[in-house]
């Protein structure tokens, strides 16, 4: 029977739930047009929770092993909470301007989605996986459509398209996942990962496994399951995309790691070659297709696909080093990518697409924003002294240790290809000439704060990566040996 002790690993998630309810009730309390504070409240709560994670002891297994609280899970919780806080902060002005009456629900959905994210990494049960994924995914689809309208300019320009594309693809992939899981369960008679690992292999089980992995690959947006990514990113409201581009990815990796390295750890050889395929495909397609893009959001979407490929290298290594560096990469990626998208929001507030020209002469319109954008793209490209460099470096190190030296060379070369389009952004920011009607930018404080947070993360983790790396590898260790 479940006891109160079972809740110990879930403290943070429960608190998150309570804060969601708090936001909900405050929303009900607030009169229309006064709801701007909700964003700050959400950000504050999430930040608080983020700090809380450092003090509560959320270790131990619960619900007869269906859920384990480990540093691994905790670190993912932190990443998600930090991302959520930044997302809420960065969204304040956007939400307040464009959907003043739907603010409460916006943050509420954000929080629920976050709950899904924080819950999943600790889950060790297929059912939990499915449910958490849905809890995470459905709100995303709705938030992507949040603008509803179809005006030709603002945030809503492609709202319906972005949302529905995400929704339909995700529904299909959910069905696929479920179908796979049904086989997995059927052939093993259990839904706990440990039990699955123990069961003997059979074609049907293998198929189930493959279908499951396919579904998860959709969540992280690896090639060829990435096709929705650019369209949705371009169409959805930018502050939300900032969140969409990192949160689900992190969670997806947690799930993939659990499925591949725990449930099916008996089949590393076959899965390894599969993951390798995904890695190469993601890096190549993502980078090459980002090259000709003219819309920055779209470009960043494709670059994100490529980044996923790099992160998956850590998964490919499958070692403690690999997972640790994957985790570090994810953490750095959250700061970097969110920062980049938020800068775009600051440039074209409430605009769905951001053509490259809009960045022209940004250094003059707002030097700090320009510098921030430069650092973000440099980090994405993997240039020293911003976090992206270390992230790439460490996953390279991991795969090299795993005996895939050529993959390092390949990855590094493709990173140079990526530099082409990242430098297009840097070019526009520092060498482009701002057109006449582009005035000096004034960034709203909330958004500025969010960008600042990302910037701090990027620079700090880049200048002094040691502590983060240490904790990441410690977390990875706990993933393999939870106690």
């Amino acid at each position: 029977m479940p006891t109160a002790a079972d809740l110990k690993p879930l403290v943070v998630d429960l608190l998150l739930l309570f804060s969601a309810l708090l936001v909900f009730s405050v929303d009900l309390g607030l009169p229309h047009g006064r709801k701007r504070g909700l964003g700050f409240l959400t950000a504050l709560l999430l930040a608080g929770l983020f700090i809380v994670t450092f003090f509560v002891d959320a270790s131990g297994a619960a619900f007869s092993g269906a859920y384990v609280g480990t540093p691994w899970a905790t670190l993912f919780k932190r990443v998600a909470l930090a991302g959520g806080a930044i997302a809420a902060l960065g969204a304040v002005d956007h939400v307040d301007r464009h959907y003043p009456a739907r603010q409460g629900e916006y943050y509420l959905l954000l929080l629920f989605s976050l709950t899904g994210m924080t819950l999943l990494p600790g889950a060790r049960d297929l059912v939990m996986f499915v449910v958490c994924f849905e809890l995470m995914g459905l709100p995303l689809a709705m938030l992507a459509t949040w603008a509803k309208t179809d005006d030709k300019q603002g945030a809503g320009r492609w709202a319906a398209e972005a949302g529905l594309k995400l929704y339909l693809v995700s529904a299909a992939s959910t069905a696929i996942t479920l179908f796979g899981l049904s086989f997995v369960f059927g052939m093993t008679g259990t839904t706990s990962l440990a039990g699955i690992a123990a069961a003997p292999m059979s074609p049907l089980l293998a198929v189930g496994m493959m279908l499951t992995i396919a579904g998860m690959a959709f969540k992280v947006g690896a090639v060829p399951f990435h096709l929705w990514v650019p369209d949705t990113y371009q169409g959805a409201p930018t502050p939300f995309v900032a969140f969409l581009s990192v949160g689900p990815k992190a969670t997806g990796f947690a799930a993939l790691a659990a499925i591949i390295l725990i449930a099916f750890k008996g089949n590393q050889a076959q899965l390894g070659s599969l993951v390798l395929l995904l890695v190469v495909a993601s890096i190549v397609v993502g980078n090459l297709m980002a090259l000709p893009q003219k819309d920055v959001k779209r470009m960043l979407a494709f670059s994100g696909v490529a980044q996923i490929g790099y992160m998956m290298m850590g998964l490919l290594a499958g070692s403690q080093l690999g997972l640790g560096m994957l985790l570090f990469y994810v953490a750095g990626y959250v700061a970097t990518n969110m920062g980049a998208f938020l800068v775009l929001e600051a440039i074209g507030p409430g605009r769905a697409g951001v053509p490259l020209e809009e960045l022209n002469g940004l250094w003059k319109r707002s030097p700090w924003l320009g510098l921030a954008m430069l650092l973000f793209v440099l980090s994405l490209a993997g240039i020293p002294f911003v976090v992206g460099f270390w992230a790439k470096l460490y996953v390279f190190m991991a795969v090299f240790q795993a005996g895939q030296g050529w993959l390092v060379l390949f990855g590094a070369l493709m990173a140079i290809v990526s530099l082409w389009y990242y430098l297009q952004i840097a070019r526009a920011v520092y060498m482009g000439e701002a057109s006449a009607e582009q005035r000096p930018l004034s960034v709203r404080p909330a958004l500025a704060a969010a960008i600042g947070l990302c910037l701090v993360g990027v620079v700090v983790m880049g200048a002094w990566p040691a502590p983060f790396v240490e904790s990441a590898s410690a977390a990875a260790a706990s993933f393999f040996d939870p106690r």
Partner: protein
Amino acid sequence: MLGQVAFSVVALALLICGFRVVTAKNLVHTVLWLGLMLALTAVVYVMLSAPFLAAIQIILYTGGVLTLMLFGVMLTHRDEGFVAVQNPSGRLAAGGLLAVSVFAMLGGAILRTPELPTAPKGDVSIEELGAAFLTEYVLAFEVLSLLLLVAALGAIVLARRKDAGEEGESQGAVLPARKPLPARVQPTGGEA
């Protein structure tokens, strides 16, 4: 023997229904075929001695989902009736190919799996289910309830025509103001 006949009949019916669901021209028919198929699935559940699930199936699906989808069809129809758009044959062929390959893959895997049992094991009582929900799966159960809450809430907010405090897009008309099909907006994805 009888079981086999019954199964074959039901299975055939199911497949036919499924086929009609994905091919019916008229959307209303699609939805109705879907309902029929769901009901037949319930019958299969009964054959698999899962009466509780059968009941749920009938109530939730045929009761809930079906109605919802009918609403959906009604709300989103255009004057030219409920006729779905025709497909180019090439697309149909491609889809068929895909479906066949899916089936081949699954079927292959199923047939290549030797140790599949042929005899059913013991039944499952509703008490067991309830216990399972409240013990080993209680966490998932809670999350599920959250999920449903989220779905409902979000759906309401999204589908609500006119947000309180917002000036609605079209002044509360029951049917949307007929917009002309939007002219193709130039894709901004880059040079063609």
